[in-house]
């Protein structure tokens, strides 16, 4: 009974907080939603509801650092699909589809989206390609009927929605599913002995080419400093004439 956890390496979203005189180099981390998915897989295995957790990511050798972080958290086995192209969600979903067929997990848990491009598509596309059920934005997972079905609580704008899916299925993790553990030093040292399996798209028998191309990335314009107003009347005048919101 295997759980597959696909994860993505992203630029550290907390890096901007590093203040002070020290020069900080850009660092990559596991996409925070995927980290939650990894944590859930580990908890399921620790409860005895799975025998193995397998992590998979796509990227050049540089992402091995995030793979080791996943192994240090406790993932049993890791696969890197060696591909350094800028892939779009459909390409990623097709590669992961091939990995799912090879690994035959009873459930795939992954982050609902990556915090860099915020596409929120891979989980859904993967389910579509495999013809598997999906439960997205999940904040609670319970296995039912000898792990043939899962009851998932979804976070929606209307409130908490509870769905049951037949397994195998794709489940995507929302923020409140759990709080991921931190990597401990014993875990880190154990992870050094766990091998990372490297595969190529050729070996998986998939040919992908991105259907979308990123043309440019720009920072949002800097917010101008605010101004003080003397009275409510002045505020209303400014809101009408300058901001034009009234």
């Amino acid at each position, binding site marked *: 009974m295997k759980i597959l956890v696909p994860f993505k390496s992203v630029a550290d979203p907390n890096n901007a907080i590093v203040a*002070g005189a020290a020069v900080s180099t850009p660092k990559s981390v596991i996409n925070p939603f995927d980290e939650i998915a990894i944590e859930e897989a580990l908890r399921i295995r620790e409860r005895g509801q799975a025998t193995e957790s397998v992590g998979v990511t796509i990227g050049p050798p540089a992402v091995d650092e995030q793979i080791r972080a996943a192994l240090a958290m406790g993932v049993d086995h890791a696969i890197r699909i060696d591909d350094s192209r800028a892939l779009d969600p459909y390409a990623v979903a097709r590669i992961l589809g091939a990995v799912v067929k090879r690994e035959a997990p009873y459930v795939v848990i992954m982050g609902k989206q990556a915090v860099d491009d915020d596409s929120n598509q891979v989980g859904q596309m993967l389910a579509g390609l495999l013809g598997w059920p999906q439960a997205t934005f999940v904040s609670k997972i319970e296995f039912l009927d000898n792990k043939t079905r899962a009851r998932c609580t979804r976070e929606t704008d209307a409130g908490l929605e509870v769905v049951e899916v037949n397994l195998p299925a794709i489940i995507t993790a929302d923020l409140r599913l759990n709080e991921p553990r931190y990597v*401990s*030093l*014993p875990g*880190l040292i154990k992870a*050094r002995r766990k091998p990372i399996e490297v595969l190529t798209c050729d070996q998986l028998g998939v040919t992908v080419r991105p259907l979308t191309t990123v043309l440019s990335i720009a920072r949002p314009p800097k917010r101008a400093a605010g101004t003080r107003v003397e009275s409510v009347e002045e505020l209303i005048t400014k809101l009408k004439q300058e901001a034009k919101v009234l």
Partner: protein
Amino acid sequence: MDFAWSDQQRELLDAVGRFASQQLHYDVIENDRDGVFNHEAWKKCGDFGIQGLLVPTDYGGLGTDPLTTVAALERLGYACKDNGLLFSINAHMWTAIIPLVYNGSEAQKKKYLPGLSNGTLIGGNAMSEPNSGSDAFSLTTTAIKKGSRYILNGSKIFVTNGPVADLLVVFATVDKTRGPDGISAFLVEKNSPGMNVGRKLEKMGLRTSPMAEVFFENCDVPEENLLGKEGGGAFLFTRSMTWERGCILASAVGSMQRLLETCIRYANERKQGGQSIGKYQLVASKIVDMKLRVESSRHMLYHYAWLSGHRKAVYLEAAMTKLHISDCWVKCCEDAIQIHGGYGYMTEYEVERELRDAIASKLYSGTSEIQRNIIASMLGL
């Protein structure tokens, strides 16, 4: 000379930095005021692997070398503002774990080291007595052998972790006439019959690290709890102190780095007379001094640890490292307060607490005067 970290060291140190900034960057003002020891943070450090850094892997530790260990502690000191917690961890590592690693029997190591490594057990030592501080080997606590037991009598003061410790390394003499050669070390567990932990001592700084007096009144210790040989206590204590002097201020180097960055930020933000105060040379000069102190301290620390890891004699280097870093830390704290002006004197700005915490570093593990005596004697004086 190679000043670069290996990939494995960097990976480990990055993990420590992340752990400390995410898990140990908590507010300390209230705990300092109320003298509260953070048990939860202690356990987190244990689970993460801090206490077990130097402990061999066979006994539940990580078996890291001294250089990696001090660099890890430096990163803790940078991210964690709770100097008291770090002091407690240091006392635990250098005065309970180190003697066990070097002098413990196989049974003692198996019994205590895993728990001391993973944070479930808290250790410390009991050496100083009301009338024997710097003159440590003049202690008067006695250990008289009766059959298969030792009976301890006497009182100990300034016992770091005393109120929370599960295990203390207690020094007592088996024969006062033998002087230092009579001093022996014993592993005494919490709630041993005849051992009483006194009230928690109120302190100027390091208030989150609990300290107490401990009294022994016919305290019954089984002979298998003798640590090392009878009469081997003085040597064991000296080794423990050498480790402690060399390593205990690793976190202070991190703390100084944090203070330096805080001061740079403040000197750039604070405007007086139409410009940032950092533009005034008298302020800038203080910050330059702070930078020099951090760098010289770090170099001495790493050099000591490198020598220690290569099994060189470090008695002199440990004393110099301790003396230099403690001086630098106190001076950095004074400068940091001065740069912050009146705000630096306010609790809310968290600089005055650093000074209160730092001053103890000139007293523990041998006062600065004792370090100077050691250095002078090693120079042939």
